[in-house]
């Protein structure tokens, strides 16, 4: 069999258009019967869930793609669809070239058979001819390195030996696209190194990888592009670095939201509370965009249960939790203005903003008039836009000076201060 198909050079390796997959939900026999009748009639099953919805993707030769997303987002279903195991409910998948799927190492292995017999069956499933299998048997045995166990039934193998043999089988099929579902590194330490080295060589030789992993490090190291699948939809697609960063940021944000939700339930019901909070007059869930160097006006209202003027504390936090700046109204003797109904308003302008482009949070906390306790934590998102090559979170005031030869003290002539 040729190592690459004749159409391989033209167009993308894989083109996915409007791919959707519906899984029927049927737990009781009655539901299974209803589902069966619906499927036979060509209708949608009565109860179903959308595993994948309208996915559009392209995988180009040499452009390895990593799939990321939370558990149950649909990553594995997408991999299986590309591998041909899952038939799409609608949409198309065009594959140009030879693909090999490692959805599970040792899939199709039969416990009663010897390792050698299983290799023959597995290579048949992968589409190798008898002759090709015999030719490559030596390299399979060398890679698996399980010695004379190869002629023992698989049921006597340790689980590590089974995956070694499974990976060894996979290495002899030289596909254009290798699909793997978190099986990159298996077995003991030395075998893992072997797996990674093989993968490296496969990529260096122009192979393309379609990888599904929870390790962002693996994705960033092995893939050029990443696709973020969320709730069956393609949420982001692009440069692996960027997408994995966004994905990690989203995770941090989610973790923060959970913390906030837990905290806000602690305070008593009739207490000081932030009732309104707006950035540049906008009170919304989506981030408010402010250009770098622009002005940010934060305004809001604090409810006071006893009618005394409360204090507001404001903070700016980088997404991920790093605090950048914080202050409270009492520090600078700013008094909140009563605006009826035991509510008090405030307004503050930050600017010109020295924050570097990125995602931030502005947090407001209602505090008692004594500025001792804070009662809540209301968050608005801020996105600072712009382009710069500077690094970090905010700009530090600085000046570059012409260098002078004698400004740096010489340790030999002058002892270092204690």
């Amino acid at each position: 069999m040729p190592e690459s198909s004749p159409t391989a050079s033209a167009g993308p390796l894989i083109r996915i258009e409007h791919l959707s997959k519906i899984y029927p939900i049927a737990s009781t026999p009655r539901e299974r019967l209803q589902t069966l009748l619906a499927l036979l009639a060509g209708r949608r099953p009565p109860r179903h869930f959308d595993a994948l919805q309208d996915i559009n993707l392209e995988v180009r030769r040499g452009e390895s793609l990593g799939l990321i997303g939370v558990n149950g987002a649909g990553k594995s279903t997408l991999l299986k669809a590309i591998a041909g195991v899952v038939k799409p409910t609608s949409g198309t998948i065009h594959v140009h070239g030879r693909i090999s799927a490692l959805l599970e190492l040792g899939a199709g292995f039969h416990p009663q058979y010897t390792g050698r017999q299983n290799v023959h069956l597995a290579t048949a499933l992968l589409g190798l001819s008898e002759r090709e299998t015999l030719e490559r048997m030596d390299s399979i045995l060398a890679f698996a390195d399980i010695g004379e166990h190869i002629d023992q039934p698989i049921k006597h193998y340790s689980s590590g030996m089974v995956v070694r043999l499974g990976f060894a089988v996979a290495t002899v099929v030289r596909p254009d696209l290798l699909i793997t579902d978190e099986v990159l590194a298996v077995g003991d330490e030395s075998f893992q190194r072997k797996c990674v080295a093989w993968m490296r060589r496969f990529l260096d030789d122009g192979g393309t990888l379609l990888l599904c992993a929870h390790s962002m490090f693996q994705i960033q190291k092995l893939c050029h592009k990443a696709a973020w699948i969320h709730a069956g939809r393609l949420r982001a697609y692009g440069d692996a670095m960027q997408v994995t960063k966004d994905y990690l940021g989203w995770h941090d944000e989610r973790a923060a939201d959970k913390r906030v939700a837990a905290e806000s339930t602690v305070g008593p019901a009739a207490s000081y509370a932030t009732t309104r909070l707006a950035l540049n007059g906008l009170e919304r869930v989506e981030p408010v965009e402010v250009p770098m160097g622009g002005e940010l006006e934060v305004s809001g209202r604090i409810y006071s249960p006893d009618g005394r003027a409360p204090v507001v504390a404001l903070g700016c936090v980088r997404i991920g939790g790093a605090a950048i700046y914080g202050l409270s109204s009492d520090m600078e003797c700013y008094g909140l203005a009563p605006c009826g109904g035991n509510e008090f308003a405030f307004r503050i302008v930050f600017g010109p903003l020295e924050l570097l482009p990125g995602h931030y949070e502005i947090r407001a906390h209602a505090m008692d008039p004594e500025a001792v306790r804070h009662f809540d934590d209301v968050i608005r998102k801020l996105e600072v836009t712009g382009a710069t090559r500077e690094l970090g979170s905010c700009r530090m005031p600085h000046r570059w000076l012409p260098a002078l030869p004698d400004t740096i003290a010489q340790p030999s002539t002058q002892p270092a201060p204690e």
Partner: protein
Amino acid sequence: MRPAGLWAHRRLFASIVRRELSNRYVGSLGGGLWALVQPLLLLAIYSFVFRVIFGVRFPELAQHSFVVFVASVLWPWMAFSEGLQRGTQAIAGNASLIKKVAFPHELLVYAAVGATFVLHLFGYVVVLSGLALTGEVLHLAALPLVIAAWCTLFALSCGLAFVTAPLQVFLKDVEHILTPTLMVLFYGTPILYPLSRVPESVSWVMQLNPLAHILDPMRQGLLQGSFDASGRLLAALVGALVLAWVCKRMFNRLSPHFEDFA
């Protein structure tokens, strides 16, 4: 699957057939010989009960023994019924493979039915050869009829399995319905008796049974050298092929959903 598709997957198909065959007898000393034991035992029991105890005799036997009369159709029947039962389990029983590897699912049905047919065809040849050596007269000229009958049974077995195998994936009731149905069918098919002994009043029911039109013509050919009924066999062959084609279409419709349910 088109024949071309089957050809493209010939090595995979051969592997699955081999796996089917050795799965059944792997780890046993007797191996495939065990496939001979059950029908041989059945043959011995029927001969004892009907011939020794009931003393059954009917003119259709002519110079033949009751043993060869039953043996000439018992193995084909076994191939059909066991093939259908194995074929029914072919999809549900290979769920792990279907969930992990992409390949045409019908290969599993062909392999399960095919492996069964290979085993029983082997038994059939052995038993008939043995009987011929003991002096039973068999008409070798009926070989085309025998081949046609086996092909018809294979098409029928595969065709029905194309329906029962997907159903079994969705509803586990299928196997429980299949076993008693096959038992009734065994006694409702002229295996232990000739078609001509069936009373007029119920023979119309027998006419509805396609197996009667497959097994009876074959037996007439083998034992009497008579080709009178070969038209019925030919009709059964065409009917079985049409049935298999229709059932295959239903199989194709459900095949994409095996992964969801298996």
